[in-house]
């Protein structure tokens, strides 16, 4: 059976950065999907643009991987929403991923300055 080719969930984002951004956002506390998307947009000053829906497959995979987990709660406007939070593994993952990202960013910056 033919399956539709999987679209990269990150849209215009660099491969692999979306989970890191989600982890970073959740480090400040549990939140639901819409709020996570809004924070990413705000923090990145709308430079990093994604199709907001692509957040969800990423969230679900991360939940399956055990770096975040979820519970049902209510929003400020009293709406039922699924909240995500970091697990202990998620916290560790954020630390190591941040470090990896920083070293890559530093390396890229160094290469660019060389030129």
């Amino acid at each position, binding site marked *: 059976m033919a399956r539709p080719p999987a679209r990269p969930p990150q849209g215009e984002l660099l491969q692999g950065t979306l989970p890191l951004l989600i982890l970073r956002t959740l480090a400040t506390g549990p939140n639901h999907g819409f709020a996570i998307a809004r924070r990413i947009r705000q923090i990145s000053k709308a430079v990093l643009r994604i199709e907001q829906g692509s957040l969800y497959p990423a969230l*679900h995979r991360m939940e399956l991987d055990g770096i975040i987990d979820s519970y049902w709660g209510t929003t400020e406007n009293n709406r039922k929403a*699924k909240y995500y939070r970091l697990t202990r593994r998620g916290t560790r993952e954020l630390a190591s991923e941040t470090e990896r990202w920083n070293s890559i960013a530093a390396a890229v910056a160094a290469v660019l300055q060389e030129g």
Partner: protein
Amino acid sequence: MPRLLKRLLLRLRATLSPQQDRETRIELDLHLRLLEEEFVSQGMTPDDARRLARREFGNPAVFQEMSRDVVSFHWLEDLVRDLRYAGREMRRAPGFTVIAVSSLAVGIGAATATFAVTEAVMLRPLPVRSPERVIAFTTADGNGWATWSYAAYARWQRGSAGLYEAAAASDVRSLRSRRSSGLPPEDVAVSLVSGNYFEVIGARVVFGRALAASDVGSPGRGAVAIVSDGFWRRRFGGAADVLTKTIELSGVQFTVVGVAESGFTGHAVGYPVDVWVPLTMQPVLLPGMPGLQDSPGKEARWLKVVGRLGANARIERADAAARLARQVFLTEKAVQLGADIPEVARDRAESFRLVAGASGDGAVRPQFGRPLTFLALITALVLIVACTNFTNLMFARAEARRREFLIRLALGGGQWRVIRESAAECLALAAIAGVVALAFANWAISIAMVLVSALEPLDFAIGLNTRVMMFAAGCVMIAAGFGVWPSTRMVRSLAMSSMRQGGAIAGTRPVANRIMLIGQLVVCAILMFGAGLLLRTVINLRTQDLGYERNVLLIPIGVEGPGHPAEAAAALMEQSRQRIAAIPGVLAAGVFGSPLLDNRAYWVDGSEGLRTDRGEASGGTKWTFAFVGPGFFDAVGMQLVHGRRLSESGQGSEVVINESLARALFGEGDAIDRHFAMNPGAPMLTVVGVMQNARQISPRDRDVGVAYLPIRGYGRATLAVRLANPSLSQAASVRQQAQAILGDVQSGPITTISQELERSIAAERLTSAIALFLSALVVAIGCIGIYALMTYDVTRRQREFGVRLTLGATAGRLLATVLRDGAAIVVPALALGLPAQLATSRLLASQLYGVDARDLWTLASVAILLLVVAMGAVFRPAWLASRIDPTTLLRHE
């Protein structure tokens, strides 16, 4: 691990329940709505807000699908979908489903039942603690474990050097327990064991206590008993107060002190023990032998010796220790008795071995090995027939769906997808068949066990345990494999042809089907022929002239135990006999002391030991002897040829022999008043009469020589009672009166010679019943196959037949065409079957009686029967072909 488990559960939940999907939809909806609200609050119109939100968000359906892909098991989801599809297909064609499932169930069930029996009899280890540590003391020859004397056992136990622990147990004896704890008399399977038996073999006593050293203190002491779990439930209803009960055996009350763990029934395969008692009770329970003498000398061998390897001990070292102990024992014995006596020489000649005892004492295994191999062969054939039949059915089905396959392939459906659907369907059908097969196997096993236990008091805990289930599952997988093949082939060939020529719808004639059907019918012919020969054997055994009457009541009588000297007992029984002979309607009553029609009876192959008054007897006649009392010959209706019967007074040296023995001893000359001895050195006997030959041991033995000796001083015998009128009412009334006269003297249920005959041919009845049953099933499967193929063929050729009818062919002609097609399968099968039948029936030759393994009549009957049945299966499709209405058909087209 818990994390992995949680992941697995999450995935399973996502796959199997719609919950995950629903939750994702709620999340996505909420996000879209919040986005819209945000845009509205920035001053957009609701319509613009919705459009923009949609653009920012992307297509929710796509994300939902991606999300599902992330978390669910595709293959499982696909499987569920395929199985649903299979279920729909099955409901759409219930006839097909029933036929496919039932024929597979028969094949798998027969194979599973056979495996279950094999597993229980041949493969299963003892249900004890670490069975791999159990060892048995035996010799290289003989069936099962060797029997040893108590002295030999004691020496091994003393000389173990800590490498093993040895225990002893007698073979199972059936002893009659009268009136114990207010319960009716019953035969109880008893084993006499050493005090450490349970500990050594590794079976727990779960209720009460095991035997203790104090129980086996001295001979004649220790009237305590451990009962098996089964006996506890059967006899005492599983009541907790069993430990206050007693069991009477040979006049002694045994106090129940423990209940063995469930499943443990002793070390001997097939002979479950009800009650274990200390072996010190041997002088009471098995009197008349020096069973407990513990120094070398003339001792009785009556014990099996089992052991358990010590911690860290290896069997090689234990074996060395046991050999040493045995050497010392034999040397002492030689010193005591003299090295040149035959007993010592025989002991030395035995090749002692210490063997692994995990699989128990399998003395019955050789007896079952041959029949089981035979059965395995037949059931393998049945399974193959069932599987090929399944292939055939799936073939017809694939043909019928050719057009559907073609369209789906043309529309770009993957080949794999179509094949997988068909595989799921086969698996589902086979799995359902597997479940039905388990029920069928369970039923077949219980029937077979009833028949086997009529043969011998054997009992195996045969059941559907894990191993048997695994076997059945394996059969299911194989069957499913057989079913997948046709659609795979079809799809492949369609895909190829559609690429080449855009798809031709016309089907080919399935040649492979025909070949498989011919093969099936050949198997049918083989099995039917075998079953026919076995059936004729049973009929011959049943109806032949036995040399005595059949309608004779047999009443086991016995006066045993302390306080009944043998002579007094005999006098009591003789009195009873005379009173019974005087009952109105009784023609004669007589006593005999040797089993009649008992396959286990003692006989001698060859007349080497016999001596006549003129030297050695000639020839290698098989012969035996039997003890008969007053009135026996008249009671069973045996005919005297020469001379007279044994005199009532029972002259010491008188003997009556049968014609076979007379011929073996004295040739054609007159035997009366001649003399012979049964052993060199035994006293000479005087022949006073010659009887007509009668089947003494087994209904198969035509010419066994028999010497009838006067019975005297007996404690146990059988009373034969012949009635003037063998009607049921009279038999019942005589039974009642006899029972009233005998009272306690009667020691078992009343039977008749007919019943004994049936019992003695139970093995033959069992084999022929199984063979008949399986061949009937295989024939049914074969006919279903032919019927399905021909019906399919007729359906496919409807158009052709219609055209032929319009062109002037008569209905009769079409009928003949289809019948001829059917005959093209049946006739070659019969022709090929002939050599196959003759080749295989030779294997049966030793089991047959009164019928030749190449018997022409049986061969012809089987051929005719198979022809009629198979052509009967062709007839309906042929008739359908002749009824085709060309006008409707063409309108339909």
